[in-house]
């Protein structure tokens, strides 16, 4: 909800706490999932009232949401955002429960070669959908792989790149990397920014929506939910693309409309789509171990830290994680609408928290979080080093999501690659032999081309 403090920062700051407390993995995933999809709605508050989207997924909501707020209809826009989020989130949970087991059955035949190609596909998909240059995204992913290789090699037990430092023998904890690259670099960036202009904030008006407005937006919410879910399932795509496409589709479908100047359906479409996409993104995350965004990449790292290996066998080995998560999403969505409508005024007030309270609090949680992982001051220094590197990478337009994916999947991709090479006697043809591998290569090629197509859709919206 607070601009700049997205779900990834919230998870990064909270992760060390739950890790140290040894909370069960299913509970942790429920907590993180709650933060993830809750933030999809939370972002709409700052988008609608302040014209400042908390994340890129909420950017489309500002178009009609803020326009409505300026007309004194901010309450209606927020209520519609909550209702559309609820519709999108709830229906997509049923899709999740329906399609995930089917995909797991399909993916059960994966061997080391297939896993390696799957992870290559994940890197390509996440890199090509990242904002900016593809080359920079791939460099970013390899930087992540470089960080992941530090420490004891899991296959041979040989220490690598530790330079005799005992603190590096266990490798660099992914939580330290996440806190550094996301949270600390964000603090450094915020130090150079002026406080957002609170005078722009529009007053909160009545949340009451008429029956006509409700029924008029229902079809929009349902259509956007379906398209959002399908886009969310694609690794790398995520809420931003889902909300843009839903908005563009509705703008084209609904004639006449007032999209762009305060149409309530212009709020319903992106909100339903991005909530649905956030649920959809759990399918590749849990069933294939392929995250679709930086937040789900961090969640994947969390699962691995808790000894849970996401993949086709997850439904058999840890059904509590999968089904617990699905059930919690339904309950979470219900609470989202029950709590958000009456408490929206309070949330709007939180937006006005001065930065001199908020930022020291976040700095404290980062430092404490890093320290509590191993009880070591070395990790506090590491978050600072990664924070500075992250700051310069962000200034130079290098996306950070592929880097985190590199850190999270580094060990897995290396192990599977080496295993596959041992099986094949050093012949790389193993990565092109099976139908699964070929399909994944084709999907990787498609995901390389997809951003060009999506960019043209976005240009159409803006024009």
């Amino acid at each position, binding site marked *: 909800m607070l601009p700049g403090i997205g779900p990834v920062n919230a998870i990064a700051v909270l992760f060390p706490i739950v890790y140290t407390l040894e909370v069960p993995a299913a509970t942790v995933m429920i907590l993180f999932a709650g933060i993830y999809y809750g933030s999809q709605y939370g972002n709409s508050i700052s988008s609608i009232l302040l014209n400042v989207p908390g994340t890129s997924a909420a950017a489309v909501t500002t178009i009609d949401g803020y326009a409505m707020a300026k007309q004194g209809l901010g309450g209606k826009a927020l209520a519609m955002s909550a209702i559309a989020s609820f519709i999108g989130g709830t229906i997509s949970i049923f899709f999740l429960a329906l399609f995930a087991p089917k995909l797991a059955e399909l993916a059960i035949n994966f061997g080391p070669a297939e896993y390696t190609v799957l992870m290559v596909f994940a890197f390509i998909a996440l890199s090509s959908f990242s904002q900016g240059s593809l080359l*920079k995204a*791939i460099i970013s992913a390899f930087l992540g792989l*470089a960080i992941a290789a530090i420490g004891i090699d899991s296959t041979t037990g040989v220490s*690598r790149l530790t330079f005799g430092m005992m603190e590096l023998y266990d490798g660099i904890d992914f939580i330290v990397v996440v806190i550094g690259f996301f949270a600390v670099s964000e603090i450094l960036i915020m130090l*150079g920014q002026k406080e957002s202009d609170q005078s722009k904030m529009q007053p909160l008006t009545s949340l009451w929506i008429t029956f006509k407005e409700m029924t008029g937006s229902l079809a929009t919410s349902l259509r956007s939910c379906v398209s959002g879910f399908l886009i969310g399932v694609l690794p790398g795509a995520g809420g931003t693309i889902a909300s843009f496409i839903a908005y563009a589709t509705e703008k084209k479908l609904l004639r006449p409309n007032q999209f762009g100047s305060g149409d309530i359906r212009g709020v319903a479409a992106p909100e339903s789509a991005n909530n649905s996409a956030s649920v959809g993104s759990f399918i590749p995350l849990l069933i294939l171990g392929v995250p679709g965004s930086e937040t789900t990449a961090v969640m994947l790292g969390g699962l691995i830290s808790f000894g849970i290996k996401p993949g086709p066998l997850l439904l058999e080995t840890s059904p509590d994680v999968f089904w617990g998560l699905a059930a919690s999403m339904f309950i979470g969505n219900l609470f989202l609408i029950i709590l958000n409508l009456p408490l929206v005024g309070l949330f709007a007030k939180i937006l006005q928290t001065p930065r001199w309270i908020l930022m020291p609090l976040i700095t404290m949680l980062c430092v404490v979080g890093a320290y*509590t992982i191993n009880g070591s001051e070395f990790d506090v220094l590491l978050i600072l080093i990664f924070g500075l590197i992250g700051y310069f990478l962000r200034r*130079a337009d290098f996306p950070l999501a592929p880097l985190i994916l590199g850190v999270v999947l580094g060990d897995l991709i290396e192990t599977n690659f080496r295993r596959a090479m041992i099986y094949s006697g050093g012949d790389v043809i193993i990565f092109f032999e099976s139908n699964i591998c070929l399909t994944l290569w084709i999907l990787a090629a498609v995901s390389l081309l997809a951003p060009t197509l999506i960019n043209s859709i976005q240009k159409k919206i803006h024009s």
Partner: protein
Amino acid sequence: MKSWGEGGADRLSALIILGFSLAYGYAGKFIQVGFYNGDIGPHHWIYMVASVMVLLGFGLVLRPTQHEFETEVWEDWRKRLPLVGVIIIYSVFLPYTGFLGAMIAMMIVVAKLFGANWKQAILCSVILSLLCLLLFDHLLGISLGRGLWLK
């Protein structure tokens, strides 16, 4: 930081990445492979990652995007450097002063950097640090560093 011209910022980033990749690959030479003598050893992965990064780095040198660094404002670094310094000082002094002393000192500086006056900075730091200590150390049983006198 001055402007490096169109694509110049990317070339600079690429050169840093090239330097890092070469150093990374060179460091792989010192891995004690031990008894392992197979085709794909622990050092080969390092070479592979370094080689690809070198190629990508060259790619960025040759085909930079239009990106230029926004001009860095020295005034902003006058705020960032104290933050960097205070985190280093925190990690150095934590074993001696313990959590409360080190954290309150750090938080006062951070709050001041974000525009608080002295009264606000001290109040915010003391209250948040005490709440944090209460939550982690007393309620959750997670030690945050006790300092020399409490060991």
